């Protein structure tokens, strides 16, 4: 393991009301070396840092390896069906906007079968932390091509190599109306991962984070064997994701204004080197659930009954 990993592991937690244990449920059953473990810990840390009571948080997932995460996080969790985490999360936010929501999906889950929900969730801009754990392969079903599998790579459904260029999810997100937060990080950069999730947590609106992670079983060669040979560029801004000096071994930095949508769109279409950090943030995009709650009247019971009566008046004929 890289020495960079230690940056995130040592942390006192002093002055915080909860320990990480409070957010631990059953022991994770992901494969050894899977990046999902790191994301789980980063999330637990974000919960602790924000002093959240475990019962106040809802994590929602679809189907896939990464979608097991709610089983291992000691909050309320909903492990649903393939591709459909975002509609469920939207329902939770619409009805209980006081509950923070985390959505965890895989690349096939979000970009392929859940593609329509993905686009529209960005436009709704519900207030939620949305993480896509992208290992560039369908792993739970044992190695089929995913929308982000690199061109020409062999999987069980493309034994002679894939046929298409991989999708660039960042440019898709940046193309959606109402996009309010986009960041990219990787599990082999744990400090960066922690900072990114924290930043996502603090954002008001839909914080979309693509997390690059290697599947050690079915796609061990991905991302230059888990980051060893993977060209990245760190986006630098004083309000962005901090770039620790040690990270500079992994790639150069590039000054970036994440408030400028045109600049963010330009960066989003570049894939080599892969941009890491905060691509875009606009905290002023209103969240859908808040728009809806803002326009809704919540009458007391006598008023409710009076209104129901007057609606019936409209249909009363004698």
């Amino acid at each position: 393991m890289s020495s960079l990993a230690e940056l995130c592991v040592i942390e006192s937690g002093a002055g915080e009301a909860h320990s990480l244990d409070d957010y631990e449920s059953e022991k994770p059953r992901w494969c050894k070396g899977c990046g999902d473990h790191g994301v789980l810990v980063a999330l637990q840390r974000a919960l602790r840092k924000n002093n959240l009571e475990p019962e106040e948080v809802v994590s929602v997932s679809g189907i896939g390896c990464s979608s097991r995460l709610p089983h291992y996080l000691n909050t309320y969790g909903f492990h649903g069906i393939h591709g459909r985490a975002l509609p469920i999360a939207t329902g939770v936010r619409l009805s209980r906007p006081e509950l923070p929501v985390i959505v965890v999906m895989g690349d096939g889950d979000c970009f392929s079968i859940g593609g329509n929900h993905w686009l529209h969730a960005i436009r709704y801009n519900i207030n939620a932390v949305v993480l896509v754990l992208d290992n560039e392969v369908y792993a739970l079903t044992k190695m089929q091509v995913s929308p982000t599998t690199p061109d020409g790579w062999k999987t069980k459904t493309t034994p002679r190599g894939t046929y298409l260029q991989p999708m660039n999810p960042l440019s898709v997100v940046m193309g959606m109306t109402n996009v309010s937060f986009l960041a990219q990080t990787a599990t082999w950069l744990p400090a960066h991962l922690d900072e990114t999730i924290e930043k996502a947590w603090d954002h008001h609106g839909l914080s979309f984070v693509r997390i690059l992670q290697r599947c050690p079983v079915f796609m061990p060669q991905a991302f230059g064997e888990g980051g060893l040979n993977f060209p990245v560029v760190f986006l630098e801004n004083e309000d962005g994701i901090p770039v620790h000096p040690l990270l500079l071994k992994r790639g150069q930095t590039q000054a970036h204004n994440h408030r400028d949508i045109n600049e963010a769109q330009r960066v989003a279409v570049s894939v080599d080197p892969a941009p890491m950090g905060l691509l875009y943030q606009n905290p002023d995009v209103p969240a859908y659930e808040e728009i809806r709650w803002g326009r809704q009247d919540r009458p007391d019971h006598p008023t409710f009954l009076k209104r129901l009566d007057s609606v019936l008046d409209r249909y009363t004929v004698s």
Partner: protein
Amino acid sequence: MSGPRLVRLPEHIVEIVSDAGEGAQKAAIAFAQLCAKAGNGLWTVEIIPSEIQPPPHTTGSASGNRIRLAERSQVTNAGNLANVVLAFNEMALLSRLEAGSLADDVLVLIDDQWATHDNERYQRSYREVLDKFRARGATIVEIPMNAETVRHVEDAERGKNMFAVGLLCALYSKDLSVLQSIIRSIFEKKSRDVIEAAVKLAGAGYQYGIAHFEECFEVRPVPTDVSKVAMNGNTALALGAVSAGFELCSMYPITPATSASHALSEIFEDFGGFVHQAEDEIAAIGVALGASYAGKTALTITSGPGMALKTEFQGLAVMTETPLVIINVQRGGPSTGLPTKIEQSDLLHAIYGAPGDAPKVVMAPSTIEECFYILSVARKVAEEFRMLVIVLSDANLATGQQLFDRPDVSGTPQRPPLDLSPVPLGALPYNWDPTTGLSQRLIPGQPGGMGVTTSLNHDRDGKACYDSERNQRGHTMRSRKLAALQKSLTPPSVHGAPEGDLLLVGWGSTRGAIEEAVDMARDAGLAVSSLNIQFLSPLPPGLHEILAGFRQITTVELNYSDDWEDPLITKENRRYGQLAWMLRAATLLDIDSYAKVPGRPYMPVEIFGEIKRILGDQPGTGSAAEPLLASKGAY
């Protein structure tokens, strides 16, 4: 001048048809309101072209309404053949003949402008169609609707419908001033000039009728003190959802369900509710399920193709025991089928449509009034049993209007606040009662109740597990809830005598026509009764006892069954109507089915004909498309 002769009638059926966009619908709405205000019972049916702007002056362009009005306040169905048709052109008139809707001796009121129209093709077809009607025995009254209308407004297309409703006001001896006040309220949002022109045209139509009709009708309402409302089934579902305490409706547009969501969208925010139009049918149920998981009362409204898309989520709702209500306003299928027309073909899909074994509750309202009340029951069952409840309405209920007693909502209970009281750590999310399968759900925000709700098989602690014992237990517990619900239901009541030669069993909106046919048959001395089943899953208790009272049993349904006379059809391969399929399995009785897909409601006379055929009174009659009314004009 003595004026027209007055003929008193117990009930009548009138159809009003024009080209799409000419306003027959609006005229019909005004006339229906006029009848309703007078206290007539009524049932209206929309006549809708399948395209938004079909070519004018064709049968495919016909748009309008059928109105059945009666002396009695309860009218339960659209009735038999129409007695009067008011048509803006001969093709609209012809479309009703082709639909098999008109009595041979129908009274036709028609705009005469086509007799002398510049377009010779119109002149010719006008003559041909009217000759055809005369040959069948119709009475034709040609009226210069267009000419009279242009005396009052420049564009006859914008006003002929008001002249027409004035004519009907005279024909049915209604009060013109009441009609004019109805018109004022219908056009409330229009300019003063438009309103005054409409009022004047209605008056002109009325005067024309009084001056020219030889005969006018009177369907005198039975006086009543009970306040009545008139609305269609989709509106009733929407108001019922508010009254039942629903807080979120998540939907995707689909005919013929969408108008329920329109009605709800109009008012829901004033009652603390949301209508969320999702990006697709799948997301629509997903959002509703998410809201329900979070503790709110949610429903989704759709039609057949949408139901198909929602099946995976239905399985999820069942597996996670998340309360949820789905309204399916059924239409003709399969696939896009007949989007605006009635069918009852989604019963088996509603009951069985989900991956794996997924026990669901399925209910069907049989009247528009029941559309209002059914959601309170659906909600209660969904929440107390932690189940998915599917409400099967249909296009007939959705767009028909019925008069019924105004619901008393003063006792509507207040929605209790969410119970977020702490539970002991490790509280079981599926603390199944071993006998009933019932358990208390935990709501996000409840301290101590943290845990995952999973689509995987799980045990009482909610955790995923894969062994056979716990898989069997999960299935048993979810299934047992259906039995527990069945124990709490009361047996349905038989319409007619509890025993006899024939029992007709139906579900949903066919009830009115079936019961009317049974009444006709009983008046004719036949020992026939009928049964309407509201709970289709679980089936209600007492069925065996009820069915045992009859020599023969047949379901009457608007879905497909093979005809015994069809080539290749045998006892082994015949496909029965869907309720018959279920009842045969549940009772081991040789239950037959009269099940067809005419794309319109059954007429009572058709069912009466089937009763006579079954009981051997007369030989079998034609297909549903060819109405089998022997006597001209039902009344």
